[in-house]
């Protein structure tokens, strides 16, 4: 087993201010960035604040920015860096900082609440839901989400423009709208809620310029842009900008 001394810069501070602090710390074979942060806590700076839980890439707690890239600390192997490299770890830069590596991700919970829930189909009780696998495949891809909010953090719509946070739900929650809109049993349409239109009107889908950073950082490899956002854009076009579809729906409504 080999080990070496790595140079780290870790952001320390809170909402009042802060900065990058230098550390030299031991690294062993097979370790991940989170291990090193824990070693710093154990040996040099016991009050370093960091959020983590599973250390297995499944809880989505340890999101941070490593050398400027949004990543899970527990899934970033030290072996991807050279031994000479200085590794910079900062908190997520899109959300308010609480302390050190911990940010307030409440924005995401707010956005989650703004998406209307699954609407149960009329006339089906518990245990009576039947769905075909091919009908749930699309929604199931989105269910892999571990809510790490790396996509929300990296999306330039809110990262670079605080003022857009009110209007824009972010990739994670536009994907939630897509998940429900593609759900074979969701009865939102019957209850008068048009999810395709509301993605555009209420959740700010138009702000997304499909530059795919959410897809690039998603640790679950969900193809957010291609499979959720662009299909929702196309659905919004059906509702709002396609005169043929609009005409067709008018005629059909008359005749049925």
């Amino acid at each position, binding site marked *: 087993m080999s080990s070496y001394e790595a140079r780290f810069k870790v952001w320390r501070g809170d909402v009042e201010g802060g*900065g990058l602090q230098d550390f030299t710390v031991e690294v062993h074979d097979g370790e991940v960035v989170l291990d090193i942060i824990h070693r710093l806590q154990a040996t040099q700076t016991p009050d370093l604040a960091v959020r983590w839980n599973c250390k297995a890439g499944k809880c989505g707690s340890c999101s941070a920015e490593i050398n400027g890239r949004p990543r899970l600390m527990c899934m970033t192997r030290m072996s991807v860096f050279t031994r000479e490299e200085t590794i910079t770890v900062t908190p997520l830069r899109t959300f308010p900082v609480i302390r050190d590596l911990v940010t307030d991700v409440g924005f995401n919970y707010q956005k989650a609440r703004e998406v209307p829930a699954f609407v149960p189909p009329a006339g089906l009780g518990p245990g009576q839901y039947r769905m075909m696998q091919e009908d749930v495949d699309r929604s199931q891809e989105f269910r892999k989400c571990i809510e790490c909010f790396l996509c929300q953090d990296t999306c*330039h719509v809110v990262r670079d423009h*605080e003022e857009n946070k009110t209007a824009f739900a972010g990739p994670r929650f536009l994907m939630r709208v897509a998940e429900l809109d593609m759900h*074979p049993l969701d009865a939102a349409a019957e209850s008068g809620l048009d999810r395709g239109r509301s993605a555009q009107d209420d959740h*700010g889908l138009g702000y997304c*310029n499909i*530059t795919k950073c959410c897809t690039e950082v998603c640790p679950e490899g969900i193809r957010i842009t291609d499979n959720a956002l662009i299909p929702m854009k196309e659905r919004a*076009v059906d509702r709002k900008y396609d005169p043929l579809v609009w005409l067709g729906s008018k005629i059909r409504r008359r005749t049925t």
Partner: protein
Amino acid sequence: MATGTEPQQNSGGVRTGTRAAIAAPHLRTDRWWLAPAVTAAGLFAFVVYSTWRAFSNAHYYAAPYVSPFYSPCLAQNCRTMHAGPNADLFGSWWGISPAIIILIFPLGFRLTCYYYRKAYYRSFWASPPACAVAEPHQKYTGETRFPLILQNVHRYFFYFALLVAGVLTYDTVLSFRDTHYRWGHMGLGTLVFLVNIVLIWAYTISCHSCRHIVGGKLKHFSKHPVRYKAWQFVGRLNTRHMQLAWASLLSVALADFYVYLVASGVFDDPRFF
């Protein structure tokens, strides 16, 4: 008041408000600028080349090959191409190069394409230049307003792109003639045209709007097995949309350049049979 806690600026980005006080607009250490730089160079080169060729109004036909930039040729000032894609819809008042009429459609298709949008938003407009790299703009409204809201017309350009691909397929069939319009021949140009038309179709079919139209809009795939299969097929191609976008851009320019070389007499089309 400590720095970093001033009231929110309207243009607040990573360096403002209640976010961690870090002065650098980004901390990436990899070569994040490489991809947008290469993309910008590639697109720029194509724009320069195609502008020259589209306005030159010359050397676009060398029997049996017609440049994809000039097909279909819709004005009276077009060269007569034996049984070729001539259709004098515009008549004699059209004075400039007839390529301009038809190029609007593939141009519109590619400009509103979901892949090219990503490419030029990143490389020409730096919005964002790369992931987690701060963009230089004060305000951002994305595709919510005019003019970018017009990107939503992509599906109409897709329909036109189908027609154009149909005409180019016809041209490829015609390229199995020889210089005297006799059938059953094949030259190097025919091969160039074949590769080009396959790539053009693959790019066109892998379009995100196409994926939506053939099946993506459905809620229950299980009730539409044929459309489900079609959606799966387009979906598989769609994962390669970027590669196909570049490959077909290159091949269409090469096909045009090949015609240019033969038409301007640089060399004769080598014949296979």
